[in-house]
């Protein structure tokens, strides 16, 4: 089972974190920090598996990671997963991101964190690998995008809510609500040095 999926950049700024076991937010932050320290000090051509890490690496958990340009993709898994299999899964994930964003870069992960979460949800569900077929994943994501567009999607969720509010028989009916481009950003967490 996959215990957690973390993505952070070369400076330790988290870009995505998904935990499949409940941890408090403080612990999550510590885990990210600790993982970054463990992973970032390793050379480029050592192996992609490592044990250790006090918080999440305990017992039989392993960290399996890959380093792409500015980003580290780290999967924390238990012994029931094949190491090389997970390594390939990371590759599939990255290739899927690449297909969905066309030349994915760190900025895509920052500005479309919802999409990244959607893609991840198509691949990994509750810590178990759901789908490994890239085409299937991309098809699903495209379908979702279409659905979103037709229903005005997440990006305009507040707008929809507001329109709902409009219809709630409130005394004052607003006109011409201009919300602009609302996208949800990852808060700028301090980098871990």
């Amino acid at each position, binding site marked *: *089972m996959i215990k957690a999926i973390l993505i952070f950049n070369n400076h330790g700024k988290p870009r995505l974190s998904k935990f*499949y076991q*409940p*941890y*408090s*937010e*403080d*612990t999550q932050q*510590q885990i990210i920090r600790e993982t970054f320290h463990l992973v970032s000090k*390793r*050379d480029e051509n*050592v*192996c992609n*598996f490592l044990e250790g890490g*006090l*918080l999440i690496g305990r017992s*039989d958990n392993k960290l399996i990671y890959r380093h792409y340009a500015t980003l580290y993709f780290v999967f924390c898994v238990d012994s029931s997963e*094949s*190491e*090389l*299999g997970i*390594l*390939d899964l990371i590759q599939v994930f990255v290739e899927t991101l690449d297909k969905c964003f066309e030349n994915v870069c760190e900025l895509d992960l920052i500005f479309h964190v919802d999409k990244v*979460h*959607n893609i991840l949800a198509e691949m990994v*569900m*509750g*810590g*178990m*690998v*759901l*789908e*490994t*077929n*890239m*085409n299937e994943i991309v098809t699903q994501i495209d*379908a*979702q995008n279409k*659905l*979103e567009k037709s229903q*005005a*999607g*997440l990006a305009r*969720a*507040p*707008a*929809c*809510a*507001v329109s709902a*509010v409009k219809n*709630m028989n*409130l005394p004052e009916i*607003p006109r011409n*609500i*201009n*919300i602009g481009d*609302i996208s*949800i*950003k990852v*808060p700028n967490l301090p980098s871990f040095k």
Partner: protein
Amino acid sequence: MMGGVARGRGHILCEGKSKEAEIKRINKELANIRSKFKGDKALDGYSKKKYVCKLLFIFLLGHDIDFGHMEAGYLFISVLVNSNSELIRLINNAIKNDLASRNPTFMCLALHCIANVGSREMGEAFAADIPRILVAGDSMDSVKQSAALCLLRLYKASPDLVPMGEWTARVVHLLNDQHMGVVTAAVSLITCLCKKNPDDFKTCISLAVSRLSRIVSSASTDLQDYTYYFVPAPWLSVKLLRLLQCYPPPEDAAVKGRLVECLETVLNKAQEPPKSKKVQHSNAKNAILFETISLIIHYDSEPNLLVRACNQLGQFLQHRETNLRYLALESMCTLASSEFSHEAVKTHIDTVINALKTERDVSVRQRAADLLYAMCDRSNAKQIVSEMLRYLETADYAIREEIVLKVAILAEKYAVDYSWYVDTILNLIRIAGDYVSEEVWYRVLQIVTNRDDVQGYAAKTVFEALQAPACHENMVKVGGYILGEFGNLIAGDPRSSPPVQFSLLHSKFHLCSVATRALLLSTYIKFINLFPETKATIQAVLRAGSQLRNADVELQQRAVEYLTLSSVASTDVLATVLEEMPPFPERESSILAKLKRKKGPGAGSALDDGRRDPSSNDINGGVEPTPSTVSTPSPSADLLGLRAAPPPAAPPASAGAGNLLVDVFDGPAAQPSLGPTPEEAFLSPGPEDIGPPIPEADELLNKFVCKNNGVLFENQLLQIGVKSEFRQNLGRMYLFYGNKTSVQFQNFSPTVVHPGDLQTHILSGPAQPPASRPASPGRPSSSWRSWLTQLAVQTKRVAAQVDGGAQVQQVLNIECLRDFLTPPLLSVRFRYGGAPQAFTLKLPVTINKFFQPTEMAAQDFFQRWKQLSL
């Protein structure tokens, strides 16, 4: 992020007392949100989130808001909510509707949500529905896929909630499904379920084998989308091979034949030239290969395949991919335990040693060390042990102790002659003295004591080792003990004559800790017996002010008593009292136990007991049992009885009994065993339930029998230091709690409880009124706890928060009111990063801390002594 929701709800709920008020409040809130979105464009990310969360919450409360698309809602839930949130109850209703909707998109989303939250409450609500969806004929593939994993997740979270039933048989048939994604999900589910109920899922073996064989024999293009870099369905193959590892080899010959064929095909394919130069291609291929090898090792019945697997791993050992070298070493470790392939594994010894020496990656080096340990037998023990010793000099600090333990075990297990064993252990102490735990050097003393043939050699070797200008304290301990017992064997040589031996040992004396000095004092008195000519010198040393008036009561007492013993007793009495130690009774090596403890329950068994080495009979199992040791009590894990030795309670001159020394030394070691059994500790009155002491508690306590200051306990989070002083029946102890992390501990509460209370009550019949001591003025009476007749300990509460890196101090005032056997318990509880931590230690307060020397005429003493012996 949750903060937003919680706050939003907080606002609404505090004020929304009635239905109308709630609606009013919501309207107000909505108006507010609307104006926020309308008003200034420059809304920051946090506020947007907050308002969307609020809207989400209002929606969940059942108000009619078309909240964008529901997917947005689900995404929020999966991102924001973890499994212990109160919101779940509200969410459940929404999910229920979606599950019943028959729209695959909605159903999938709902299943995703259940799996991502995965709480017990979710399980209670949906565990019964999901199997139905999973096996329903009309469910879409994607729904089945999600349902299988969702069920798996719920099963893992709370197995009791998932009802087994007729659906199990139908789940197995999902292995035949057309859709590869469904099969993959189903295999994951079955692999988990069949561990609990192997018989229910037995039919999956043949289905899995036929599926596997279809994949393995397919051309790389057959499976289209599920072909990954020219490898057909690697994930599914890996999962199937994992599933097969849950069962013994198939009984049906046809199925077995087909499986063996598959395994051979995979091994053959590994030899074929790669279809692509991409690393992903070889990765995927090797993922299957390693799983295949695991299965072959698991079956352990096909010598032919085992040897092929071994050769394949041998190739990988020299592969340029670090990942493959790592995995090959790891797999070989398990392979080494198979008797068919043990010899084949041994042929790779040079490669593995080379890996240990040259590998740049510490993870790989550690695997290499593990493998060397696993492949060791009598034929290569010397080579392996010497390589590991060499590696120890440069090894990473984190793994040194483990390597020390492994070397010690191998050296003992495969020793052909014991002089080699002694050399090895002494080398170990020389190279990595700090990492040599008590178990290791106790064991060498045990073996030397029990084997006549090695005693002379041991004495000579330690004597030489001690001549090094700087030697580790553990070396001094071993040296002191061995020379005290067997120094006479080398006394004939003028270079190691008795005075030389003594002055050599005494030159180290002043640099050593109290425990070592106590041991050396015992050595000195043994010297008086062995070499009468050193008597005057040694008596002068004992008589010196620094010994007789030593601040440490233990040293002082030893000096006083040994001095008296040497001057009062006749040579005969001395010879009896200070006789050579009798051989130790045979018992399981405590080092092995320690290694198991260190590696955790899973890893330990794979490393040692899992070995099936046909050549290792128990010739080397340890020390041969000797029948003459009737009088030696065997303290459970304590080798010498020395570490817990309090001063002999009476001048031994009076003792005619030959084994007095043994008794004296062993007595206290038995003390921990009189300590609280878990039940007693549990029943004992205390402010809260005190758990049983941690397993190391006795060990930690014993360190403090002869010393007053030091580190009582240390783990990754917390360090507890002790400083204490005792005078007559009073003692004061300072406990220092150091937070080793960078995070604050919350609800930090150390409490002291004395487990002896209850025992005393029961033993002393009718409960006496608690001997409540009047609180003396100036002492905070609130924290007074008087322990009836034994110990009174007064403490002050410490701050409930301990900042990261900070240290807090707690003072205990201790008064000994009566003799006692069990030390008080210190229970430490705190929260670290939300997780509660609790453990119980034994406080280093033992009866000997309150001992006072006293003068007594021989006549009086004998009178008392006879009374004592009943």
